[in-house]
């Protein structure tokens, strides 16, 4: 059997021009640097392409922002005037060039709907989303880590099985269903101890209004923690079964020290990818929770912007989300490389995203990534 646990990726094609120069510098620079630079460039390319796709897509949306803003009562010539004022009558390429130029000079334009600068509008919403994300992370990550390690150490015990089966339930039931149930239990039908709608006061930062964060955080944490929990459990079990743990045991190293010094640090490396995945999901996909709780986050804003065909706002939000996703992926991969000795010192990193596939496999099957013959 040939087991290729981590970098079973593609053999990179022959290095292109800039990479060749980097190769010459390899003597002095860390080995992962060419890989990192390549990934960075590719990430920038991804952002560019997505901005272009979104621009094209929003322009292709049926209906017309000017008409939607002015409503059905507006006569056609009034709509034409507004269309001209918004620059919507000009060729697509010109509009994109203008937009890109504006963005490069740090200006995201004005919202068509409320005529507030997009940057200003998004800043508040992103701050709210970030607060919610961090709150979810603060609840879900420690919970998943502690429970995952605990369950791995008591593998197949009654507690392990009980948690595993209840976790499957939360993993399977769609997040918005969990949200509706929480609202019914904690704010409307059974108890009324928590606000049903997260009506944040915009003059205060979101973290100063914790009562509004509880239910959305709980909803998202319940759906997210399950994935992470299973990942940690699986990778911890694998670490405990590994040869170096067996070797350490033979050498008479105390069990406690084996767990905390050897097993846990190694088990956490796949969890980095899990954390990145969680951030990605929360960053762009908390729309349903935001709608249920009327939480003024970025998902709600984007949903409304699409409905209103508020093009500058859609483009601004998607741009920031894409950059965020690319940065998160890159950071997760870089951390994985730096924390994995074999990858850190490798002469050449072949996988595009070392560790990602391993994490995905741990998720799916509870086993590391292997290619069997």
């Amino acid at each position, binding site marked *: 059997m040939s087991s290729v646990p981590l970098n079973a990726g593609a053999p990179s094609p022959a290095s292109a021009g800039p990479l060749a120069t980097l190769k010459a510098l390899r003597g002095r620079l860390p080995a992962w640097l060419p890989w990192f630079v390549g990934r960075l460039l590719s990430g920038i390319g*991804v952002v560019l392409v997505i901005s272009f796709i979104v621009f094209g897509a*929003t322009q292709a949306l049926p209906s017309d922002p000017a008409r939607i803003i002015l409503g059905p009562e507006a006569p056609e010539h009034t709509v034409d005037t507004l269309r001209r004022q918004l620059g919507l009558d000009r060729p697509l390429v010109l509009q994109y060039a203008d937009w890109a130029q504006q963005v490069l000079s740090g200006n995201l334009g004005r919202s068509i709907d409320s005529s507030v600068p997009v940057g200003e509008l998004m800043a508040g919403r992103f701050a709210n989303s970030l607060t919610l994300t961090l709150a979810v992370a603060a609840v879900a990550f420690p919970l998943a880590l502690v429970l995952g390690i605990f369950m791995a150490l008591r593998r197949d015990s009654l507690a392990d099985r009980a948690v595993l089966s209840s976790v499957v339930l939360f993993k*399977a039931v769609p997040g918005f269903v969990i949200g509706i149930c929480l609202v019914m239990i904690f704010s409307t039908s059974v108890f009324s101890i928590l606000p049903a709608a997260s009506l944040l006061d915009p003059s205060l930062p979101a973290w100063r209004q914790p009562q509004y964060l509880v239910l959305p955080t709980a909803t998202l944490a319940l759906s997210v923690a399950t994935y992470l929990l299973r990942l940690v459990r699986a990778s911890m079990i694998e670490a405990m079964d590994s040869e170096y743990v067996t070797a350490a045991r033979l050498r008479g190293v105390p069990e406690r020290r084996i767990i905390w010094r050897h097993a846990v640090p190694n088990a956490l490396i796949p969890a980095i990818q899990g954390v990145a995945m969680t951030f990605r999901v929360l960053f762009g996909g908390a729309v349903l929770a935001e709608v249920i709780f009327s939480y003024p986050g970025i998902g709600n804003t984007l949903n409304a912007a*699409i409905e209103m065909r508020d093009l500058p706002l859609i483009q601004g939000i998607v741009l920031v989300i894409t950059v965020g*996703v690319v940065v998160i992926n890159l950071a997760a991969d870089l951390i994985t490389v730096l924390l994995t000795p074999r990858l850190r010192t490798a002469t050449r990193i072949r996988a595009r995203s070392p560790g990602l596939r391993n994490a995905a496999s741990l998720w799916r099957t509870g086993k590391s990534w292997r290619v069997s013959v």
Partner: protein
Amino acid sequence: MSAHASSLRTVLSARQVRFGLVLTLAVVGFALFGPLFAPHAHTDLVGITYGRPTAGAPLGYDYIGHDVWSRVLAGGVSVVWMSLAAAAIALAAGTALGLLAAFARRRVDQAIVWFTDVFMAFPDLILVLLIVSMLGRDHWIIVLTVAVAFAPGVVRLSRGIALGVVNQEFVEAAEMMGYPRSRILFREILPSILTPLLVHLGIMLTWAVGMLSGLAFLGYGVAPPAADWGLMINENRAGLLIQPAAVFGPVLLIALFALGTNLLAEGVGRVTSRIEERKS
């Protein structure tokens, strides 16, 4: 072949797999045959708004006076076929692209991988919202959109496995001996990626149920008067407190379906990886 049959038997003997399979089949059966037993057409207005359950209507009436039981019976077909179709299309398209990438290498491979990067950086729900608002909400458009959102994951998965196989000596040997590529593909590669892909199919099915019902919930999915479990949750949410059955019926069925597919996929994944370990 007999090896495959025996591993199938092993898979089916696992308790979780059997439970997941029974649950999934039960919900699918309910969805497929339910419409035959519906006392009313799902569009018939037979009761008062948010009427309480009675003897003739075990789940009461909904926001406009439809019989909830009839709609629950009729509302599973779309959930089942749409999630199955979305997952299957994503699987087929993704596998094809992934294998192409693994075989073609170089430019084509780079291009495909890079485009999966692009799609993966695109948050799923945003992608779907954009496409659905652009092209409308016909069932097949929604299905294709969800498939597009899922396909990049399949591309990654199948390409990775295929590369692992392609790089092995016997494939190189076969290539050198002049065996046609298609033969290598079907004889050597497909069998080894079949199991992980099937596991992934199960997982995508769960995601698809969540995503499709979420879309219906946001108002971007199946449109009334069609009966659809996700849509029904949304329609009757306002009456949650006076007529909870209209919401809980569909919620329960969606949860059971998602649970069944999830248990099945996970169980199969766990058992097959155990089989593989034993083989090695």
